[in-house]
């Protein structure tokens, strides 16, 4: 065959192969949603996941009502600035159509059902909230009329709640009900616009019970100082400190009351989950609370941006979703407040797109885990259903929460198969492995997920098993060593030559070795040791550099090899340059500023002495740090107090050595030393700031020169 023909055939084969590959791997991107879904964990600030919910349907385009002029004809009457949405236990959807002063009902499949008839004596006036209880009674927050009305399912007025008379309600309390919720006993919880007193709780007959779930006014140290030193007139000019107001309220099937709050300084507890006694189950500061108490995620948050949560939806199992009306992010948490997903997409102001909510006003979820979000800008309702991925995660997480780890395991495995970066799946698998006794596996998974406590517990179990297996052997070795030692002592007594052997180790009497050995003398007798460094030539630049390098190596080893139980950094990719810079910048800064300050303050030390002394003072890193790092890998969190004691002791020791160094080398008194240290730290800060500015400016200058060169050369 001719080579050219061969070539063509080969080309054809190649093309075929490419086609086959193409068929074998269809486009990886699945259904294209107009928003991105994320997860965030301790170890990874942003994980991209598959969508947990998919947009399905838009509701509210088919509202036809009899034409008021011609009752025979049907006219389109869209929603107008609706503000609340509620899905009842039969999955029927109710919307508070604020602009049209009416309540609109949709059937469970999303088609328009009816508009509740207007109340004959006093029609609704911009109703902003509504709630439907288990018996089908509809409670409407009739904002314009400052009342709550209770209707039956046909819209007939049953009861009316207005602001009750009570001496506990402050003078000038503005009652402007915007949201309402009702518990199983018939007690009514009312959110009044901007009220910082908390929820107004009324009994079923409309009597005042209490203010419930009020937030705490933010109060900082600065405020307390202000309060101390300001005069009354000055203090009154300050912006008054008010507790964050509650935005919304919801009650789940188990009777927990959820509040959603917003305030300028509200950094945590945006969502509260309260029992009847008012105890928050999502707070980190009480015994019933959980670890996570900040809610409302923002994908790339600006420094001042805080979530403005407006509504919360709780599903049957206690998982809840909140919407943020500023950033339009929907965040989902499980019943303990652990994040599951958050998602948001960019809205264009002109077009309406399925899946993009321009201005979310309310959210609710039905029994099929379908989410409805009310858009008060587009005047529509968007419906989302769980994707396969979302359903799997929910199922697995609910099983894990119930403690059915074994059943959850295959589901988590499937989740992990779909998304290898989804940390809750790893945690779930780790819990499963731990509960079935596979501790090495659990340890590995906890390490991967970055859970220190779980890792430590698994390690504890492994260590226990190890000890149990080898106890006899270890004890025999111990006894053997002790017996050998005693024998040695007896023998040494008989034959003194033996003990002399130990003493007469090979002595290297070189000057350099002596200088290195001096570090140990410094450790035991810091004052004399540093004095000797200054006046007796016990150190040199070479020995100081050796000690310094050793200390740096130890420091790096401590940072990267300490057991994960104590060192969350162990799993992060620690860049060697960062550690290097951190260590040496601080050290060089210290040496320079200490020398400068001391020479001004009539210290007696030369630069050489400061250099050598400062590096010798780092010896505890080598002497304590290295063994501690080694030991830490055999420790679990139950020995944390020992570890912390030694770890902090090491730093305290270094600090004390530095103090002694300044004192002895510069020949200072205690008071002078303290002043010197203070100035040194100040100088270090100034040097740091100057370096920062210089660096920033030089970068600017460089780019400036570069652009000039570009200008000249290109033109």
């Amino acid at each position, binding site marked *: 065959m001719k080579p050219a023909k061969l070539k063509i055939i080969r080309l054809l084969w190649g093309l075929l192969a490419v086609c086959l590959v193409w068929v074998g791997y269809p486009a990886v991107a699945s259904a294209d949603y107009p928003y991105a879904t994320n997860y965030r964990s301790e170890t990874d600030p942003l994980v991209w996941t598959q969508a947990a919910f998919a947009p399905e349907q838009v509701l509210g385009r088919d509202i036809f009502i009899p034409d008021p002029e011609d009752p025979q004809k049907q006219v389109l009457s869209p929603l107008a600035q609706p503000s609340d949405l509620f899905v009842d236990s039969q999955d029927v959807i109710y919307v508070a159509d604020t602009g049209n002063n009416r309540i609109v009902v949709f059937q469970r499949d999303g088609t328009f059902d009816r508009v509740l008839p207007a109340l004959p004596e006093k029609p609704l006036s911009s109703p902003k909230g509504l709630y439907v209880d288990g018996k089908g009674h509809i409670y409407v927050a009739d904002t314009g009329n400052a009342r709550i009305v209770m209707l039956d399912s046909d819209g007939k007025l049953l009861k009316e709640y207005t602001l009750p008379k009570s001496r506990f309600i402050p003078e000038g309390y503005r009652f402007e009900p915007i949201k309402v919720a009702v518990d199983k006993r018939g007690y009514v919880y009312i959110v009044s616009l901007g009220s910082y007193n908390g929820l107004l709780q009324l009994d079923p007959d409309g009597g005042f019970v209490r203010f419930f779930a009020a937030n*705490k006014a933010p*109060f900082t140290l600065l405020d307390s100082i202000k309060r101390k030193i300001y005069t009354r007139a000055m203090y009154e000019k300050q912006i008054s400190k008010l507790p964050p107001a509650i935005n919304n309220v919801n009650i789940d099937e188990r009777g927990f009351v959820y509040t959603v709050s917003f305030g300028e300084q509200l950094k945590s507890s945006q969502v509260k989950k309260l029992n009847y006694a008012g*105890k928050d189950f999502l707070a980190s*500061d*009480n*015994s019933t609370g959980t670890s996570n108490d900040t809610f409302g995620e923002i994908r790339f948050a600006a420094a001042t941006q805080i979530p403005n949560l407006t509504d919360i939806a709780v599903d049957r199992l206690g998982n809840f979703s909140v919407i943020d009306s500023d950033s339009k992010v929907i965040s989902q948490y499980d019943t303990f407040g652990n994040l599951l997903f958050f998602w948001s997409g960019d809205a264009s102001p002109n077009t309406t797109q399925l899946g993009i909510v321009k201005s979310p006003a309310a959210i609710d979820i039905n029994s099929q885990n379908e989410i409805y979000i009310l858009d008060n800008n587009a005047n529509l309702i968007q419906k989302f259903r769980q994707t396969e991925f979302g359903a799997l995660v929910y199922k697995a997480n609910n099983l894990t929460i119930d403690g059915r780890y074994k059943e959850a395991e295959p589901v988590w495995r499937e989740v992990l198969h779909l998304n290898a970066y989804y940390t809750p799946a790893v945690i779930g698998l780790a819990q499963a492995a731990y509960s079935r006794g596979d501790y090495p596996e659990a340890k590995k998974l906890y390490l991967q997920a970055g859970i220190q406590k779980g890792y430590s517990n698994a390690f504890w179990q492994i260590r*226990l098993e190890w*000890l*149990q297996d080898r*106890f*006899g052997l270890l*004890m025999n070795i111990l006894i053997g060593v002790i017996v050998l030692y005693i024998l040695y002592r*007896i023998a040494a*007594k*008989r034959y*003194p030559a033996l003990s002399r052997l130990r003493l007469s180790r090979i002595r290297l009497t070189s000057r350099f070795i002596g200088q290195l050995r001096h570090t140990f003398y410094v450790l035991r007798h810091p004052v004399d040791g540093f004095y000797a460094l200054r006046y007796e030539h016990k150190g040199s630049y070479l020995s100081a550099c050796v000690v310094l390098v050793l200390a740096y190596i130890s420091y790096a080893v401590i940072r990267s090899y300490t057991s994960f139980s104590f060192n969350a950094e162990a799993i992060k990719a620690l860049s060697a340059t960062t550690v290097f810079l951190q260590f040496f910048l601080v050290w060089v800064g210290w040496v320079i500023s200490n020398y400068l300050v001391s020479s001004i303050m009539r210290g007696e030390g030369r630069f050489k002495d400061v250099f050598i002394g400062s590096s010798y003072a780092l010896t505890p890193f080598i002497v304590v740090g290295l063994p501690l790092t080694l030991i830490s890998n055999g420790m679990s969190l*139950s*020995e*944390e*107090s*020992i570890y912390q*004691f030694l770890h902090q002791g090491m730093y305290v020791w270094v600090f004390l050595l530095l103090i002694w160094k300044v004192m002895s080398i510069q020949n200072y*008194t*205690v*008071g002078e030393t303290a002043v010197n240290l203070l100035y040194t730290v100040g100088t270090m800060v100034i040097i740091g700031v100057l370096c920062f500015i210089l660096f920033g400016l030089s970068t600017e200058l460089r780019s400036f020169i570069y652009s000039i060169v570009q200008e000249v050369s290109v033109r």
Partner: protein
Amino acid sequence: MSRSDTQVMNRGYAPGTTVRTKGKLSLLMKEIWRYRLSYLFIAPFMICFTFFILVPVVCALLLSFTSYNSLEPPRFIGWANFRYMISGDLLFLQYALPNTFKFAVIAGPLGYIASFLLAWLISILPGVWRKWFALAMYSPSLMGGIAMTIVWLPLLSGDRIGYLNSFLLEWGFIKEPVLWVTSKDHLMTSMIVVTLWSSMGIGFLAMLAGILNVNPELYEAGKLDGIKSRLEEIWYITIPSMKPQMLFGAVMAIVGTFKAGGIGTQLSGMNPTPQYSGHLIMNQIDDYGFIRFELGYASALSVFLLLLMYLSNKFCWRLFGSKGDE
């Protein structure tokens, strides 16, 4: 012939001389007889020491290798007790040991430093006051139990009326009363605080005596040599000249913290403490010794505690013990 005898003998004679064993023994007897009056003088102490300290400790050591329930005769079981302790007793491994370490590591050094500082402060006071302040500081360790019920329990009471809670609530530091002594999160802290308060015991008195004993001429000499501040005085003169008392204080602090046990149950009013948060080795010993009557295992635990104390004392000797050449 025991080893100690040979040692005694060797001390008297040049090492390496080979004397027959029989001869050694008779020589020893002669030696003892020669100093019979001295032996008579130390006899009261030695007898008490042997019967009330040495024998019980040796018994505990022996019992720790047996299974013994105080009714049947002890049965030798070898290492089994220790094996169970290190690898099977989850209560001990998960709670008693970590809690004891935490308690000792925090309460020991802090109490020690506090006793030194207080002793020093009191030593500055004029003579009339000194006595009374020393007494006041010493009294908590004397009447721990009474003071506990009068002072600490109302102070740390977990309801709204407890002094600490009502104060914190009033000042807005907390929103709801904190269970200082009955919750697992706070019990340990309360225990440490109360222990610190009552840690001004014998060690404190010894240190006070040590400070007062420092030769005043030394301070004068120091001043002439250029000591300018009180701090330097402490560092260069006071501490070096009271090393024995410092050592004694350290040993007492260690022993005190390791053998503290009742405080958790006293404070919380429960035994065992809530979720074992205040469970120390001493509680574990009590539990096995006097509730379960597994005296063999309880002895093993005590032996372990003894070992722990011994090692930490060794450490203290290293730190504070004056070496011969200094």
